[in-house]
């Protein structure tokens, strides 16, 4: 079976599923995070008077954007893909296919949508002179690769366990809310009290929030050790996710 062709089909279908029947089509993928950003910018900049600490610190809006967009890709991919197997129960019960493809296509479509949105908004900010480093664009896109691997690994776990434990998807939404605030997305890690800062690193997304800022805003220093740990984490999570998925895969039909 040509798995590549199949993956491509499911990926296209996922993308079209998102926009089929919606009035603004693909534009919605861009509009939604923009509205979100406008709301956050208003609340944080004009209500809370949020400032990024440091002398040559970037403005709050670009500071937020470079961490929030990857987070949206990460969290949305997880929420959507958690039910990828369950939603395709009709297909799984009738056609033999490698089921990983369904999870992969779901995660990939979230990433595709939000990565292109990310690039678009970075270009906008760059033109607006918000201190985005053009040289950081390529490394930033490359940084999506380990993030994708991490997300896919988690998605394989969640989507297969979801078949057995149906409450997982609901719990996941809550968990992600918690993780969002437990990562330095809305705030800088230097604002966190010293004794609590170590806890931040237990959140797998913290590294990405910090590093996107290093790459795109030259805010903070690049930490090679954390980079290595993040790469290893992504690889291990993907490996474990794949193994759990393989183990549960033959039994999906019995429980769907």
């Amino acid at each position, binding site marked *: 079976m040509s798995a590549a062709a199949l993956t491509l*089909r499911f990926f296209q279908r996922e993308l079209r599923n998102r926009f089929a029947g919606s009035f603004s089509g693909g534009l919605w993928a861009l509009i939604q995070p923009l509205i979100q950003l406008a709301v956050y910018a208003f609340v944080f900049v004009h209500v809370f008077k949020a400032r990024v600490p440091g002398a040559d610190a970037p403005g709050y809006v670009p500071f937020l954007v470079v961490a929030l967009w990857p987070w949206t890709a990460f969290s949305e991919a997880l929420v959507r893909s958690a039910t990828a197997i369950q939603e395709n129960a009709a297909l799984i019960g*009738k*056609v033999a*296919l490698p089921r990983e493809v369904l999870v992969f296509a779901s995660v990939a479509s979230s990433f595709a949508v939000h990565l292109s949105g990310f690039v678009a908004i970075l270009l906008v900010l760059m033109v607006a002179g918000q201190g985005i480093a053009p040289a950081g664009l390529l490394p930033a896109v490359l940084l999506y690769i380990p993030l994708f691997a991490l997300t896919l690994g988690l998605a394989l776990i969640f989507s297969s366990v979801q078949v057995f*434990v149906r409450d997982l998807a609901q719990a996941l939404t809550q968990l992600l809310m918690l993780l969002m605030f437990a990562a330095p997305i809305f705030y800088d890690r230097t604002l966190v009290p010293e004794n609590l800062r170590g806890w931040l690193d237990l959140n797998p997304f913290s590294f990405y929030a910090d590093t996107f800022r290093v790459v795109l805003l030259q805010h903070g220093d690049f930490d090679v050790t954390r980079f290595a740990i993040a790469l290893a984490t992504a690889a291990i999570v993907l490996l474990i996710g794949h193994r759990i998925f393989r183990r549960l895969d*033959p039994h999906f039909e019995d429980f769907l």
Partner: protein
Amino acid sequence: MNAPLIEARGLGKAYPKVHRSADRLRALARLLFNAGGGERVSVLQDVNLDVARGESLGLVGENGAGKSTLLKLITGVLTPSSGSVRVNGTIGALLELGAGFHPEYSGRDNIAMAAALYGLRGDELRDRLPEIIAFADIGDYIDEPVKHYSSGMVVRLGFAVIASLKPDLLVTDEVLTVGDESFQKKCVRWIEEYLDNGGTLILVSHSMYHVQKLCRHACWLRGGRIEQYGDVFDVTQAYLAYHERKSTPVPERAEIVRAGYEFSVLGVELNGIDTEQPLMLEFGQTLQVGVRIRSREGRPPCLAVGIVRADGTPVYGVTSDMDGSAPRRVGADEYHAQIEFGDLALLPGSYAVRVHPLDTEGVRLFDTVERGIVVRGASREFGLVRLPHRWADAGDTGGA
């Protein structure tokens, strides 16, 4: 060529019993940590099946006998709980109506997805797309969402995809009968051509006519096991006979009159054999029924001999006095009668011979003894017996 296309060894499938959500959690833990146990419902057990290339196999059985489960195991949709199944080739499956089609997408999109599911690359699909659309022959509907299709159109689309793939193995069920007359003919023609070109077919059907028309062998599944496997006519006839017996409420013993019979049957021989086992006959063979009758008072009896189908439908009955014959006296209180049915016109299937002694006047009936017979043969005629017939103005087709 020598390795069978499908090899199933000790194949079985059992579903876990899950009633409460806690059961699901427990099942998950068991699967993750590799522990066995848990309550299971078995739907298929110990199936051994070889299907050679070029074979055409009909799968028959009651609802819930495990036919669909077996097909799903063969096509790889299900994973066996025990045993193994191996398919050495590509499979095209046309199982349930619109399986794998997404109702929101157009026919064209669904063809693309179905082709990808069967492992076709993009360029291969582009080459075959016109051919598929032509075969489906649903006109402008090809660009409409599948949810607006009639069920016949869905089947047309599904079959068109399979037909273009020319898989090594074609697995299909009754869905074909959803199509209209002309499309059905097209499908049957296609399948026949496919079989002539060395294709392999597994057909699930409740229509013995279709099974007999398209298949050489048949497999009868009953309660998750193979009840019978063999020549298509033998298996389908046995299966139909089983249904006929099942639909008979109670054995018709009501005719048995009076204990301490004045006349009773001592023994029945079919073609010279006295056994409780059903007698196997070829279509058109001769059937002899020999009966020994005890007459308590030594009075000469009459004898009634009848043939009924397995479900009790009478086929033919006659008594000795109707024909002006009488049982021959062979002892003080024993009589013997023999009747011969030459060129037995019974169509292949299961029947029973019933004999009853009657009193001397041929009025009152005593005792009933029944012996089964099975007529074997390859015939697709309908009904119970072959009536002598001749087609007028028949062209010469090489037959008699």
